[in-house]
C-alpha cells in the first residue's frame, strides 16, 4: 500500500463512523464552526475558487466558479441540490461516504449552502442506496438536534434545511437538469440550456448542483486550508492559462478483474497502472489486463499500453477517452471479449437513454440492435462502420443532443471499435463466415434484454 494518508476516507472503518459523536471526536464540524464565526460567504467562495477544486461528479467543472455564476443579490430562494444519484457503472465512492461518513457530507453541504446563501438543500439520492438513505436521515436528525441544521445555525443568522429525496432509479437523473426535473416531480428529461441551473434551476430559482464527494472536499478545504489542498495532485498546465489543474485527493473506485477491488483515496494524477498494482493488488488470477475503463463506462477505454495514463482531469482525454468521469476504474482482463464489453455497454445506454432527443433515443437502440446481432453470430463488417458513425454523431459535442448521456454512450463504442477493431473483425468473420461481407440491410433479431 502506498503511503498517502486518506483524508476523505479518514473516518471509514472506525466503529460507528456514521454517528455524530464519532465524527465530532475526530474533529468534525470544527471547520463549520470556524467558517461561520470567521468567514463571510463571499470569502468562502473565494477560498474554494482559489483551491481550484473541480467537481467530482464527472464533468470536473470548477466548483468555486460554478457558485459564482449565481446571480448577485438575488432575493432568493436559492437552492442547493446534492447529486447522489450515483449511477455510473463502476462508481460507488458516494455510497461509501454516505454510508460510513454521512456527517462529513452534511458538513460539506452546510458549508456549500453558507457560501451560496442557499437555505434549502435537496439531497437527491438514488433508490438503490437504502442504507445511505437511512444513515443520512439519521445524521440529519442528529444535526437538527445538535443545532447544525435548522433555524439560526450555531447562533448565527444562517438557517438551512436539508431534504432527502429518493429517486426512482434512472441513470438520467444524475444529469443535473434531469435531476432537477425529477426533483420537481416530472419526467427526468434534461432541460435545454441556457438557462443554466445557476440562473434558473429547481422550481425556476437559481440552483447549484454539486456532487457528494465535491462537498466532502469543501469540508476538507475549509478544515485544512487551500495550501494543503493544492499540495496534492497535478498543477495546472502553465501553457494553458484556462487549465484549473487537478488538485486534491480523489476517491477511485476500483473494480473488475483485480485482486482487491474497493474504493481507494489517492492524489489526483495517479496512473491507472499504479492504482491497479499498488492499491488493487494487480489483475486477478495472474492474468494481464486487456483494457480498463478510466472513470465509469461512459468515459471509454484505456488499452493495456495506455494504463500509464495519469488519472487526473486531463489525462484520459489525451488518449482518446471522454475524460476522468467519476474515476471509477474497471479492469478488464485478457480473457474478456470486447464484443461482450461493448454489447453490455450498448445495452446499458439503450436502456437508460431518456428518449428525448432523436439521435440518442434511436442511436443507442440501433447500436444495441447491431451488437445483439453481432453477438448472435450474424454480424457484418459494415456494422462496425455504422456503429462508429453513430458514435461519432451523437452527443452534445457534435451538438445533436441536449445532454451528455449520448456522449457517454458514444465513447465506449468509439474507443472499443477504434482501439480493438481487429478483435471485432475477427469475431465477426469467425462467427459469421458466410455473411460478414453483406452490406444490405438484414433482419433484426428480437431484443429482449434492453428493457
Amino acid at each position, binding site marked *: 500500500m502506498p503511503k498517502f494518508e486518506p483524508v476523505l476516507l479518514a473516518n471509514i472503518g472506525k466503529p460507528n463512523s456514521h454517528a455524530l459523536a464519532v465524527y465530532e471526536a475526530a474533529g468534525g464540524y470544527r471547520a463549520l464552526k470556524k467558517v461561520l464565526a470567521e468567514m463571510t460567504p463571499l470569502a468562502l467562495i473565494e477560498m474554494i475558487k482559489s483551491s481550484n477544486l473541480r467537481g467530482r461528479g464527472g464533468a470536473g467543472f470548477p466548483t468555486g466558479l460554478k457558485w459564482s455564476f449565481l446571480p448577485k443579490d438575488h432575493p432568493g430562494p436559492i437552492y442547493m441540490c446534492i447529486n447522489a444519484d450515483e449511477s455510473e457503472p463502476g462508481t460507488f465512492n458516494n455510497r461509501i461516504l454516505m454510508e460510513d461518513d454521512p456527517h462529513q457530507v452534511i458538513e460539506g453541504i452546510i458549508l456549500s449552502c453558507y457560501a451560496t446563501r442557499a437555505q434549502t438543500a435537496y439531497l437527491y439520492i438514488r433508490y438503490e442506496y437504502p442504507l445511505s438513505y437511512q444513515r443520512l436521515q439519521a445524521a440529519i436528525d442528529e444535526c437538527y438536534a445538535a443545532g447544525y441544521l435548522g433555524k439560526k445555525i450555531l447562533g448565527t443568522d444562517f438557517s438551512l434545511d436539508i431534504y432527502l429525496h429518493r429517486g426512482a432509479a434512472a441513470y438520467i437523473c444524475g444529469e443535473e437538469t434531469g435531476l432537477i426535473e425529477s426533483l420537481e416531480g416530472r*419526467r427526468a428529461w434534461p432541460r435545454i440550456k441556457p438557462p443554466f441551473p445557476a440562473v434558473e434551476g429547481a422550481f425556476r430559482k437559481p440552483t447549484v448542483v454539486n456532487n457528494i464527494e465535491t462537498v466532502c472536499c469543501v469540508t476538507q478545504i475549509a478544515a485544512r486550508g487551500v495550501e494543503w489542498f493544492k499540495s496534492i495532485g497535478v498543477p495546472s498546465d502553465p501553457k494553458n492559462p484556462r487549465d484549473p489543474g487537478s488538485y486534491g485527493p480523489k476517491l477511485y473506485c476500483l473494480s473488475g478483474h483485480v485482486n482487491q477491488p474497493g474504493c481507494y483515496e489517492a492524489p489526483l494524477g495517479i496512473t491507472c497502472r499504479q492504482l491497479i498494482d499498488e492499491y488493487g493488488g494487480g489483475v486477478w488470477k495472474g492474468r494481464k489486463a486487456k483494457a480498463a475503463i478510466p472513470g465509469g463506462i461512459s468515459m471509454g477505454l484505456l488499452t493495456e499500453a495506455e494504463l500509464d495514463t495519469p488519472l487526473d482531469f486531463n489525462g484520459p482525454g489525451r488518449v482518446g477517452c471522454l475524460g476522468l468521469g467519476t474515476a471509477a476504474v474497471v479492469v478488464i482482463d485478457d480473457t474478456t471479449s470486447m464484443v461482450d464489453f461493448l454489447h453490455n455497454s450498448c445495452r446499458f445506454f439503450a436502456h437508460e437513454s431518456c*428518449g*428525448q432527443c*432523436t439521435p440518442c433515443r434511436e442511436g*443507442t437502440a440501433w447500436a444495441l440492435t447491431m451488437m445483439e446481432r453481432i453477438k448472435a453470430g450474424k454480424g457484418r463488417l459494415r456494422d462496425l462502420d455504422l456503429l462508429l458513425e453513430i458514435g461519432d454523431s451523437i452527443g*452534445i459535442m457534435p451538438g*445533436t*443532443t441536449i445532454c451528455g448521456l449520448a456522449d457517454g454512450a458514444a465513447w465506449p463504442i468509439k474507443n472499443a471499435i477504434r482501439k480493438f477493431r481487429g478483435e471485432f473483425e475477427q469475431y465477426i468473420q469467425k462467427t459469421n463466415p458466410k455473411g460478414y461481407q453483406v452490406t444490405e440491410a438484414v*433482419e433484426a433479431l428480437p431484443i429482449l434484454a434492453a*428493457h
Partner: protein
Amino acid sequence: MAIVIVDGKEVELAPGERLNGIQAAERAGVDIPRYCWHPGLSVVASCRMCLVETGTRNAETGAITMLPKLVPACQTPAADNTVFVTDSEKVQRSRAMVEEDLLIDHPIDCPICDKAGECYLQDYHFQHGQDKRRADIRPFTSRRREMGETVTLFVDRCVMCSRCVRFTREISGGSELYVTNRGNREEIDVFPGRPLDNKLSGNVVDLCPVGALGDKDFLYQQRVWFMKKHAGVCTGCSTGCSIDVEENLDTVYRLKPRTNPHVNQWWMCDEGRYGFHYVHSDRRLTNVERLEDDKRLILEWSQALREIDERFRDAGRVAAVLSPHLTVEEAYLLARYARRVDSQALVVLGPVPVVGDDETFKNGFTIRAEKCPNRRGVEEIVQHFMGRAATLDDVSASIEAGETRAAWVSGGYKDAWIDEATAGRLAAVECLVVQDLFDSPLLERATYRLPGAAFAERDGSYVNHADRLQSVAWAVRPPAGVRVEAGVYGELLAMPGLVKARRVLDEVAREIAFFSPAADPVGPLGMDLKARVMAAEAAITG
C-alpha cells in the same frame, strides 16, 4: 435595426422583435425542417431536425466566427449579427441522420395512413432523407390505441416530438397525455381511466407532424390530396375562428384551424371542428314551398320570389328578421329589400342562440356562449336602418298592434332556435316567409318556405365578438334546390348579374360608418373594425 444573416442573405428584424433561428430563416425564405418546434408551444429542442450551423458576424470587421457544433435553430435566438447556415453538408448530414433514426421504428405504412400527403416525416424524407435503409429490418407493427372520444393513436408511427403532450399541458390545460416508458420504447399514452377529454382535443391531431394521432371523425374518409382548402370562418360561436374548409366534390370532410394571431392563433375547438356535419344532413330543406289551404305546394324559385314580392308590396307594412347567421352583405341586402318595399319596414336582429357560459382555456382561447358568427355585424346593420337596436320582440309587438302585415324571417340555425309561442305570434301576419336550413315551429307556420344555405356555401363577411371582420368565399355548392341568400336578395332587388359579396361590402362600407374601414381590401386575417375606426377618428380630431 438588428440584422440576421441566413445562408448569406441578410434579414432585418423590427426593433424588439424576438425570433428564433427557424422564424428568422422563414423571413429569408428558407424552410428549416422541424418536428417538435411549434410557435404556439414551449421549446423542447428534442427532435434535433432543425440543427443548423450558427455563428456571429463581427459588426466592425465583418468577420464571421462559427460555432464548431450544430445547434437547434428553434432554441437559438436570432440576435443582431447572428449567422445561420442551413444548407451546409454538415447540416444535411445531420438531417439525413435524424430522418434515418426516425424511420428505424416507423412502420412506413403510408399507403394506409391518413397523414400521407401532409406528413412531415414523408416530406422531409424526400427532401433530406437517404434512399436506402441501413438499419436492421423489423417486422411491420401497427398498434392502435384510443386516446379518447375524438382521437386515436397509431403507436408505432409516433416520432416522439411531444407536441401533443405539451398542448394538453400548456394550451388545453388538462394534461391528459404523457410519455410512458423510456428510450426507443417511449410511447404517448393517457392515464388509466382518464381519456383525452377536452373541448380542444382535435388540435392534437393537427399538431401531430406524422400519422400517429388520428382524428376519428375524419379517419379513412378521404385522401388529403383529393381535398381542396378554402379559407373560411367557423360559424360555431362568436369567436369566429379562422378555418380552412377542406372539401372534395362539394362534400366537406373536415375543418382545420387556419393560423390567425388575432383570433384563434393555431387552434379551434371540437364543437366547431366536428360541428359541420349538418351541412350534409339529409334533413335539410331543399324545396321551395307555399302553404295553401293546409297543403304545401312546391314552387319554382323565380315564381315564389315573384309571388312574395307581390304580396309584400300589397301588405304595405313589412318586417325583416336578420339572422346572426347571415353574412354582413346578406343582412344588408335583405334589409335594403325590406326598406324598398316599405320605407318604414322593421329591420331587426334575429334570435341570438346562447348556450351556457363562455369557456376560457389555459392559454386564453375562448369558446363563446353565443353560438352564431355575426351578431355584431347584423346588430350594426339594424342600428343603421332603425337608428336603434331592434329584436324579434319588436316584430311580435308590431304584428300584435296590427301594423306589420308581412314578415321575412331568415334562419340558418343548425339547432332548434324558436319556440311554439314565439312562432305563433309571428305567424299572425298575412304573409310569413321563412328561409332556413331545417324544420322548425316557425317553418310549420310559414306561408312561403325557402331553403337556406349553410356556412360553407356562403360568400361574405362576419364580424366577431371583438369587432373583427373576416371575409370568406364559398367552399361547396349548396344541395340541389337550395339557393344562397345573397343571390335570392339580389334577385328581389333586381341587381344586375351575379351578386358579388365584395361589391356589396363596398356599398356597406360607404353607407355605414361602422363598416367604413372595409372599403380597404380585407386580408386573410380580417380587419379590426373598431381599432380602424378609432384610428381614423383620432386622425381627424388630431
